[in-house]
């Protein structure tokens, strides 16, 4: 494995690992806040126990997310020093603000986790909400920094020099809103389906049914609302990408030929040599409609993009298909759930509805990973779109492959341990969180 590929793989691995923990860390506090609120209002101990059970999970995920985030702040320089030398001062603004948000989150988490019985209950509740809000703000800021790489702004690039730097303009680049919106909704959908799925499984296995049924409702509601909203934000994102990064959009859609009434290709195997998609389903004019809201305007294809400026087409296309496909399945489940809640209450007691949620447990996170693959791989060969190539940014240090192997081993072991801990938390529900006579 050459050093460049190793550096890219290590970055992808670290981001792919961190993203799961940061999503959970920023969304779970909102679920907890709802359960905690219901406990304070109703005095029902089930809500208190749910809040406490979830808060254990949050502590585990937050700590893992915090350390993997710390690692990333160093890895930017360890792997991409040439990028950071120029980009740091331009896109650093969201990171400096994120430092504050993350700090507040850590402080609020200290209050929340160790605050049971120590503080006024509403103060305690608010510290939990602050954990969620500051986590969300952190997420938005970090995504804004990534958006700058897709849509560089706030400087003039003159003869290889980065002049007239304006960090505020860089932060509010063209892509920050659409990307942050898409990511935040994705975090709610992914975490919601994951948590709801686990509780659904426990209900199906007839364990602590009252506890798990109550716990199921909160993430399920968040997840289903997010699943309905996500296609809308996806549409905003796609139109945005088409305008700013036609090469990325063309790779996502495996759209080789620029022609009027550009077709939307569903599935299929892109063949970059023959410049065509095999076995895909083509719907004529639909891509034109999705991008320009009319069926005839041609969408720029890969034929109009120089070959050495094209991203890897197959990976981007597959990742995009996976993301959209899973999004559609989650939308379908959400529709079923809303029909059940509003019209057909009897469905709520049917095992098939719960089974759907169990199947959907990993879907949101797979979609999140696929979406990040689209964003990052689709931007290649650029690290700063149109300005700096990824290959120019990589560290001169040889032997990065070894570093990649060790990081892989560390992250795999961590994932296994976290899964193991989660399994133990769930297994201990009857003894810790749902005893027949709950101790106060």
């Amino acid at each position, binding site marked *: 494995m050459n050093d460049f590929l190793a550096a890219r793989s290590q970055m992808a691995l670290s981001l792919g690992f961190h993203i799961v923990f940061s999503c959970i860390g920023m969304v779970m506090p909102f679920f907890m806040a709802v359960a905690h609120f219901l406990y304070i209002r109703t005095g029902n101990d089930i809500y208190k126990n749910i809040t406490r059970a979830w808060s254990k999970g949050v502590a585990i995920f937050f700590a893992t997310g915090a350390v993997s985030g710390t690692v990333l702040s160093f890895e930017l320089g360890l792997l991409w020093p040439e990028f950071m*030398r120029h980009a740091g001062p331009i896109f650093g603004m969201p990171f400096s603000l994120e430092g504050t948000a993350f700090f507040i989150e850590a402080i609020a988490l200290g209050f929340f986790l160790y605050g049971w019985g120590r503080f006024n209950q509403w103060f305690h509740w608010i510290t939990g909400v602050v954990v969620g809000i500051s986590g969300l703000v952190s997420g938005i800021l970090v995504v804004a920094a990534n958006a700058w790489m897709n849509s560089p702004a706030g400087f003039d690039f003159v003869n290889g020099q980065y002049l007239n730097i304006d960090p505020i303009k860089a932060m509010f680049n063209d892509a920050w809103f659409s990307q942050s919106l898409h990511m935040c909704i994705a975090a709610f959908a992914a975490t919601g389906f994951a948590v709801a799925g686990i509780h659904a499984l426990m209900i199906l296995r007839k364990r602590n049914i009252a506890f798990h049924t109550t716990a199921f409702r909160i993430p399920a509601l968040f997840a289903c609302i997010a699943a309905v909203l996500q296609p809308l934000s996806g549409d905003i994102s796609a139109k945005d990408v088409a305008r700013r990064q036609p090469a990325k959009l063309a790779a996502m859609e495996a759209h080789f030929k620029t022609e009027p009434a550009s077709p939307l290709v569903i599935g299929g195997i892109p063949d970059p040599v023959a410049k065509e998609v095999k076995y895909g389903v083509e719907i004529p004019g639909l891509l034109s409609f999705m991008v320009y809201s009319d069926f005839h305007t041609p969408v720029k294809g890969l034929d109009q993009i120089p070959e050495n400026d094209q991203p890897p087409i197959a990976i981007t296309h597959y990742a995009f298909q996976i993301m959209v496909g899973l999004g559609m399945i989650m939308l379908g489940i959400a529709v079923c759930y809303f029909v059940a809640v509003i019209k057909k209450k009897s469905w709520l007691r049917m095992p098939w509805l719960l089974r759907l949620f169990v199947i959907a447990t990993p879907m949101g996170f797979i979609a999140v990973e696929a979406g990040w693959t689209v964003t990052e791989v689709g931007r290649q060969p650029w690290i700063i779109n149109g300005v700096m190539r990824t290959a120019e940014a990589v560290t001169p240090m040889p032997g990065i492959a070894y570093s990649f192997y060790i990081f892989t081993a560390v992250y795999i072991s961590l994932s296994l341990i976290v899964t193991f801990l989660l399994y133990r938390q769930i297994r201990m529900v009857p003894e810790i969180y749902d005893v027949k006579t709950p101790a106060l």
Partner: protein
Amino acid sequence: MIFVVMAYLWAAILLYILLGGADFGAGIIELFTSEKNKAYTRNTMYQAIGPIWEANHMWLIIAIVVLFVGFPEIYTTISTHLHIPLVIMLFGIIARGTAFTFRHYDAVKDNMQKVYNRIFVYSSFVTPFFLGVIAGSAVSGRIDPEANNFLDAYVYTWLNWFSVTVGFFTVAICGYLAAIFIIGETDDDNSRVRFIRKAKQMNLAAAVFGALVFWAAHAEGIPLDKWMFDNPVGIIAIIAAVLSLGLLWYVLLKKGKVIIIRVLAGFQVTMILLAITIRHYPNIVILKGGRYLSLLEHAGQEKTIHSLAMALLLGSLLILPALFYLLYSFRKNDAVEH
């Protein structure tokens, strides 16, 4: 505005050494505690740092963000030429943070606890050791941006006696801070005596490794003695540190107030950092051949520094009151001083 940013960078490093250092020290103390007292020490430490440990480590993030936004040349030079110790330190941070959380939040308390404990104590040693190695390397004059073979460019930059002794010195300082801190966290007289003995040992270790740092500097041709003692601020800072150490032991043995000994310990570390940094101000990295990376000359453009300063000022308005309230709320809840 550049001075605001520099002040924040210095403060973040200091606070990381003090708070993060005491936090690392908790693991170091546990490592050097006999088997029969380990559980008590662990629990006392956990009571004290459980709610605040995440916040203690945020100072590192603040420092690194200030570096990469405001001083990208410095950040990239360090991360290129000290790649290896940085990666080891990062593994230490991962192992320590997760082991600390996992051992508390594992729903089943079984043999896994031993695994977590072991990972926690060893990573508590390794992480500050490599932090010290990195800090020592930054001023060792071994970083050579023009080096063209692997060993000179990426290994001997940090693998030298000076950097290694600074690493051990950092570990001893962390252990010392934690030992001083934990004395105030116990009500049990026997344990108090034990913790005082631990503080003495750590204090001695810091003195020994401090002397070794000077020896290593001498052996490697680094004029450390000159840096520390050829300017009045350095001399005064070192004298103040020594005097306050005497005072600390006097107060401690007279069973004075816990807060006083804690402040004195913090004061000593502050003075040591001041003495080390003042002589090189505004330089922060010393390269091979006597060249420097300076906080003034290698800063980002004015607008970047301005917005960074604003972000830091705004951030501290939010962070500091919340942090003080956190530390205040979770201080030891007994009205009676020893």
